[in-house]
Each structure stands twice: as structure tokens, then as C-alpha cells.
């Protein structure tokens, strides 16, 4: 059973487009979980403490940023997916395209999972921030610092994904 032959049978387009799909969908999943976790707590806490309503929207913005990272990478990768002619390609070009396919898949996974966990994290912390703010107004700024660190990890995902896709190209002129 030749795994190599099976893997070689998969077109690089499959990998690249899977990368795009996973990247954006997992990022949005993380952002969604974060937003509803924080949002529900802001609504609940805001009933008895209306002053928290506006300030705590920052937490929602942090969650949203996570989805934006996802869409940036998805656009970067999908604009790089270029047609190449498999029949007439030289060995070098073929290898370069396969490499590009794998790189795009990996970049999509990187940014997707990083943003998924980042979104969940920012959501839980943001929820805690809203409820603590409702009880004691001085706590919000302190907890915001935790949230900033939490959203930094999503940024790491984007940076690594950019590095992964930095020098790879698909197409007939790829090398």
C-alpha cells in the first residue's frame, strides 16, 4: 500500500482550498463562541448595572478581531491559488506547486486553530470582565489587560501563517 502515491494523487488545489476553508471557518467559529459568551454576560450584567454596557463592547471588538485575522489569511491564500498546467510542467515547477499547496493548507490550519482557541479565551475573559465590572467598576481595566494578552495569541497565528505563505507561489512560473 503506497501512501506516497495516494498523497501524490491529491491535487495541490485541494490542499490550498481546504486551507482557505478551514482558516476562515475555524476563525469564525472561535469569534462566534467568544462573542456570544461575552455578549450574553454583558446583557445580563447590564440589567442591574447599566453603566457597563458601553465600556464592555471592547471585549466584543477583541473577539471580532479574531475573525478578521481569519479573513485576511483566507484572502491572502485564495488570491495566491493560480492555475498551472500539470501535463507540461517541469519537475521543478511541479514540486514548487505541490509545496505551495501544502503550505497554504498548513497556513489555513495554523490561523484557524489559533483563532479558534483565541476566540474562546477572549470570550470567557470578556464575560468575566463584564460581570466583575458590574460589581466593582475599578476591576474592568485590570481584566482588560488579561484580555489583551489573550487576543495576542490570535495574532501569533496570523504572523506564523504569513511566514508560512511568504515565499511560496503556485503557477507555471513557480520555482
Amino acid at each position, binding site marked *: 500500500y503506497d501512501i506516497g502515491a495516494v498523497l501524490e494523487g491529491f491535487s495541490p488545489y485541494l490542499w490550498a482550498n481546504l486551507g482557505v476553508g478551514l482558516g476562515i471557518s475555524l476563525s469564525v467559529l472561535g469569534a462566534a*463562541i467568544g462573542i*456570544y*459568551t461575552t*455578549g*450574553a*454576560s*454583558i*446583557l*445580563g*450584567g*447590564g*440589567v*442591574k*448595572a447599566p453603566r457597563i454596557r458601553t465600556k464592555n463592547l471592547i471585549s466584543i471588538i477583541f473577539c471580532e478581531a479574531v475573525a478578521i485575522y481569519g479573513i485576511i489569511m483566507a484572502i491572502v491564500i485564495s488570491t495566491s491559488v493560480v492555475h498551472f498546467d500539470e501535463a507540461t510542467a517541469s519537475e521543478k515547477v511541479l514540486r514548487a506547486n505541490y509545496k505551495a499547496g501544502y503550505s497554504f493548507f498548513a497556513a489555513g490550519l495554523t490561523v484557524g486553530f489559533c483563532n479558534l482557541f483565541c476566540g*474562546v479565551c477572549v*470570550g*470567557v475573559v470578556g*464575560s*468575566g470582565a*463584564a*460581570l466583575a465590572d*458590574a*460589581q466593582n467598576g475599578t476591576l474592568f481595566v485590570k481584566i482588560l489587560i488579561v484580555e489583551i494578552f489573550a487576543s495576542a495569541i490570535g495574532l501569533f497565528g496570523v504572523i506564523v501563517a504569513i511566514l508560512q505563505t511568504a515565499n511560496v507561489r503556485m503557477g507555471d512560473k513557480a520555482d
Partner: protein
Amino acid sequence: MFSESMFSVDAGYLEGLARGFKGGILKKTDYYNLTQCETLEDLKLHLQSTDYGHFLANEAGPLTVSVIEERLKEKLIIEFNHLRTQATGYLAEFMDYITYSYMIDNVVLLLSGILHDRPIKEMLAKCHPMGTFEQMEAIHIATTTRELYDAVLVDTPLAPYFADCINEEDLNEMNIEIIRNTLYKAYLEDFSAFCQQIGGTTAEVMQEVLAFEADRRAFMITINSFGTELLKEDRKKLYPACGRLYPGGLEMLAQAEEVEQVKLVADYFAEYRVMFEDDGTGMDKTLEDKFFEHEVRLNVRAFMQQFHYGVFYSLVKLKEQEIRNIVWIAECVSQRHRAKIEAYIPILE
């Protein structure tokens, strides 16, 4: 990991709202102001500046302690029902479980009222509003437990707890207390199992709270049964099995014949030993006061964790304790007997 994230979908708003209610619980300064009151009108004035607001505003006639107590309970019911009507799924069932303990108290209250030939309307007025169930008036037709079950309880949520109680004996003083404790034992064990089924943080938090409730009842049943005709085997059947005392401690308690022996049992558990000792502060707190204090401590701790249903249970219990505190202070104020006015149990800083 994601299960705690999923919590917010259905219960996130209600948790935030419940924490808002908890933030309105009276603090030390509020209690200080209340203890300085000279009359009940002063008390009403001070309560206006707290979360209670103008709840006594429409009271016609002179203010009495029972009126204040009624209005306080009413406010708690309104808040609880507001949360309950918006709850779904496990949370709705959880909140229903909270009301069952009040239902048990109401059933026993009505039964003892019948025993003493009190008019049914008077007894219904005294029932706790959180434990209403249908067919409450029909209780007066029951003379044995089987009739009680068939006529009234089979349609209520208390039906499964009654399995151990049904016999053909006539209802009398002793039996009613035994009924109360048997029902409560079945209820506590059922509630505990339900919380374990929910799992996660809810199970963890509720386990602690319900275990203390079970142990407290075991201690109180034992101590109150000294000098009565309750046999040791019967006493043993009343102990709930979901506490820290199960199984070894309950065995020992079942054999106890005086308070010293109960103290020996409590010595095995660090928290309970402290409660039975004399603390050197000189204030003579009763055992029940110490139990209440510990319960308040456990319930406040429940708020330290997020994304679990325990906050709803603890909110109800803390509000109840607050009502007891305010009523105690109101009694001291209205009878001008200020010696023990400080004997309320503080809840929050």
C-alpha cells in the same frame, strides 16, 4: 472544554442577571444603618435606599413585622420567577428542584394545620409562595398517607419522594415530622444525583452545598430526637445519604444517645468540629447559628466560579438568609429589645 463555552448560549444572560441580584444583597453598612433604626418606619426608609426600593410604598395601615416579611418574600418570588420563566433545559429543571423543598414544607404545614383543626384558608395564607402546587386545598380530605398520596401528591413533582412514606397509619404529630424528613431525604438525594448528572462545575459546586445540607439535617435530626420516642432504626432511615457523613458518620450518629456522642462524631470532620466547640469569643451562638454561618460561607463561595447553575441556588439561599436577618432586626426594633440585635448573620462585606 467547550461545554463551559456552551453554557452561555442558554444561561449566560440569566447568570449575569442573577449576579446582578446578588450584587444587591445588603452589605455591612446597610445592616449597620438598619440596626440604628428606632422604629419600623425608619427601617422602611433605610430599605428604600437599597435594592428593595419602594417595596413597602403601597402599604396601607400600620407597618408590622409580618407585613414586612411578606413583602420581602414577595420580592424574592418575583425575582426568582423572572429568572425561572426565562430558563430552559437543564436550568429550568434545576430551578424547579429549588422549589421542591418549599413544597415539602408547605405540605407538612398544611398537614399539621389539619391535625389541629385550623381552617384551610388560614393555613394556605401561611404557605411559602415559592412552593405552591396545584390541589393544595385538597389536602384537607386526607386522613392517612395513602389518601394524601392518591388525592394530592401523585400529580405533583413530590410524587417519587413519597414512595417510602406510604402506609395506612393515621396522621399524627410524630408521623408528620417523619414524613417531612423522609420527603426531604429523598429530595436531597434526588437533587444531588441530578447535579451529578449535569456534571462539570455545577456538580462540583452543588456537591459541596448539598453535602453540608445533608450533614446538617443528620445532626439536627439526631439532636432533636433525644428524649423522644423515635427509635434508633427509624432515626437512621431519615439521614440523607449524600453528605460527607455517609456512610461511616451516619452509622455512628444512629447509635448516639446524647450530645457528647454527637460531638465525637463531628470531631472526625474539621469543619464540623469547629462548629461544636465553644469558640472563645464569648458570644453565645447556638449550633443552628453556626450552621447558618457555614451555609452562607459555602453559598458565597459558589459565586466565585462562573458558568454553572449553582449561582441560582446560592442566590435563593442568600436572599432567604437576608430576609431572616431583616425580620430579626425588625423584631428587635419593634419590641425595643436591642440586646441581641447584632445576632444577624452577615453575608457580604
